[in-house]
């Protein structure tokens, strides 16, 4: 213990200082993470992504239905030609 470097202050100030550093770490972490995540919540981002995926699917379905409809009318024309 005689080799210990001289240290300033009693136990209480050092303890308070250590706790203050912890509080600063907490504040910095909250600030950094909220700044990184931004104002839009992850739930909202996921909902928006889901909505765009649903819209894409609906568009694809509509396209497929349109192609089927076009094919259907062609076969109908062929059928009508044979009937004549």
């Amino acid at each position, binding site marked *: 213990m005689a080799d*210990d*470097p*001289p*240290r*300033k*202050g009693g*136990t*209480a100030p*050092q*303890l308070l*200082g*250590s*706790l203050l*550093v*912890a509080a600063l*770490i*907490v504040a*910095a*972490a*909250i600030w*950094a*993470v*909220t700044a*990184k*995540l931004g104002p839009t*919540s*992850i*739930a909202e981002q996921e909902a928006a992504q889901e909505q765009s995926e649903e819209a894409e699917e609906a568009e694809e379905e509509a396209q497929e239905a349109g192609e089927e409809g076009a094919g259907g009318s062609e076969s109908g024309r062929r059928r009508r030609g044979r009937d004549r």
Partner: protein
Amino acid sequence: MEEFLLSLTRGNVSEVKIVLATVVALLAAYQVGLMAVGYGKLQLPFLRPLPASKAHRAIGDSIVAVTLVVAVMCVGYFGFEDDEAVHILLASALLAVLAFKILVVRRLHRLGRFLPALGITVFLLFWATWLSAAVEHLI
């Protein structure tokens, strides 16, 4: 439970969880530094081992409380999803080792020689658990 957590966090369960998990991960790193001073491995001119150890204990109690809140949020809102197996495994190991460490500190004093190893394990598990879940939203 899900509704309670949604109303408590105003629909931001993931965000609150990420913030709290990041706070405890950083505090865990600070705890390692404090105990390095507490065990005399690191000598600082402005901090003696006794206040460093006391601060370690006080901050540790807070970390445990926040960790339990994060665990309840995680299980209560997300449940046990198959695609999060690694995260669930790491988090379960973290809670088990943390509980054992607290037991050694408060009851099983004869196992006190294992505390540094337990502390390092807890620290690594905190970071591994954080990396397995929160980091994807922050990079």
